[in-house]
């Protein structure tokens, strides 16, 4: 473990921390642009966070210690995951041996779990609705996620994201194999579901549609800022797994020099803009599904994951 590796690891966490609002801003702006409106500025999420961190904190009387600790737990979980995955470098950095893909998934879910607890904690009706809906969606999404991980493991014969990255860069036959492309499709549907996009999540905050918003309705001020930032970081992390592990495994730093890290950060932002464009297309073309049709896109994702496993076995 050299000092350079430690610095690179810190740079990875900082990249997730500082660039995640930019991706959110990009999606929000260009979604409006597609509809021929002007849209908010690219840096609007940063301004929102700044504003929230300078506001007064209002806490419900019924809130217990869970209410205080949940945002911190969610935020910490999102800062832990970038240690385990290739954000800027394509080789493992110090502490990245703490967990494999499943470990990263576990920590991501842990953040969601704490926010669910906090939503139930204050005893408001909206919190209950929000957490029950979130749990319902994750019950539908988790099996697919696990199956995608299983298929990745069978494809690369390893559970480490770095190994998958190297395999896909080195072997074009694996990159273009049906297994890999089915995995990409299945993960893309999961990405839409987990980052609060259509066809399940609504972009307008009306009570009957609220899922993610209903959970954090009781929060205000800095704690709300922390939660919003944590959800943007979750989006960034899922984009990282999607791009750097599955779809676009190129353009990461191999040596870990300062120039390489900076170039990798720029490449990562460009890659994420590409994925964000796809997400914007889906958000524009697709309308929100009604509650009893949530299982349809997720069943399609499950089917694709099963196909990926099957295609891998007959390869």
């Amino acid at each position, binding site marked *: 473990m050299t000092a350079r590796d430690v610095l690179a690891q810190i740079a990875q966490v900082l990249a997730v921390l500082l660039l995640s609002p930019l991706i959110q801003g990009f999606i929000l702006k260009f979604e409006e642009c597609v509809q021929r409106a002007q849209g908010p500025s690219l840096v609007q999420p940063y301004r929102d966070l700044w504003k929230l961190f300078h506001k007064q904190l209002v806490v419900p009387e019924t809130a217990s210690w869970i209410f205080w600790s949940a945002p911190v737990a969610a935020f910490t979980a999102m800062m832990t995951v970038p240690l385990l995955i290739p954000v800027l470098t394509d080789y493992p950095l110090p502490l990245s041996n703490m967990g494999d893909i499943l470990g990263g998934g576990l920590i991501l879910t842990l953040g969601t779990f704490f926010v669910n607890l906090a939503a139930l904690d204050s005893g408001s009706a909206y919190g209950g609705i929000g957490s029950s809906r979130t749990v319902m969606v994750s019950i539908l999404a988790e099996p697919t996620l696990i199956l995608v991980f299983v298929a990745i493991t069978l494809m690369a014969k390893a559970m480490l994201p770095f190994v998958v990255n190297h395999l896909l860069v080195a072997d074009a*036959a*694996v990159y*273009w*194999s*049906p297994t890999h492309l*089915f995995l990409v499709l299945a993960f893309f549907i999961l990405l839409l579901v987990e980052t609060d996009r259509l066809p399940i999540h609504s972009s307008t905050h009306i009570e009957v549609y609220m899922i993610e918003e209903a959970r954090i309705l009781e929060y205000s001020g800095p704690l709300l800022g922390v939660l919003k930032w944590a959800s943007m970081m979750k989006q960034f992390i899922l984009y990282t797994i999607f791009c750097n592990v599955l779809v676009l495994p190129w353009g990461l730093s191999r040596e870990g020099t300062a120039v390489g890290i900076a170039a990798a950060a720029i490449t990562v932002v460009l890659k994420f803009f590409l994925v964000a464009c796809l997400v914007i297309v889906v958000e524009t073309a697709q309308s929100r599904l009604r509650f009893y049709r949530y299982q349809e896109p997720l069943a399609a994702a499950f089917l694709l994951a099963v196909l990926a496993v099957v295609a891998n076995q*007959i*390869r």
Partner: protein
Amino acid sequence: MLVTHLTPLASSFFSLLAIASLVLSFVMLGSQWLRDYMYAFGLQSWLIAVLSALMAFYGGYPELYLIALFTALFRGLVLPYLVLRILRRMQVSRELHLVVQRSSSLVVGSLCVMFSLVIAYRIAGAVGLTQNVVVLALTVMLSMKLIGFLMLAVRHEAISHILGLLLLENGIFLGSQILIPGMPLLIELVILFDLLVAVVCFGVLVRYLLAHAGTTSSRDLKRLVG
């Protein structure tokens, strides 16, 4: 034979395109709107065109580039355009009365795939070719044919019948492209133009049905008239 000595990259391309076509035929089987059904067919034709071009590249058959171009042009653009025109003239945009529910027809379709996998293993074993690409191509070809037949059997609308027939044709074309890529150019062209004629005939038939029977659903055509 080309398929027996493909590079790993080429065989993963071919299996990808074959499986993607099979998935698209399931999209056709499960779709509710006739328009989606047709878009899936157009996309499938484009995939088959890409497959022909790749075959031309890896096998060194320059005439297949021409076939790829024609496939993309006729199957990917002209046929969907003609079917869209027919669709626009008809008042129906979806299948209203289903013999078999969409989800059950998906299950029947997957049974067809299993059946064709068994047959494909038998055929490949009998011919002495046991490469995965060969078995896969045979499976996809047979199951696309069976799914095409299934759609002809369980759907009522005339437009579904056209698309079922076209799917059947696509399956044969895909299999022939992978298994025997060196077919004479003339035969391939004849197949392509045959389809064009079929769709035009169906267009005339649909107009006739609309004018004389007022419907294009075979459900309403049970009564004999003199």
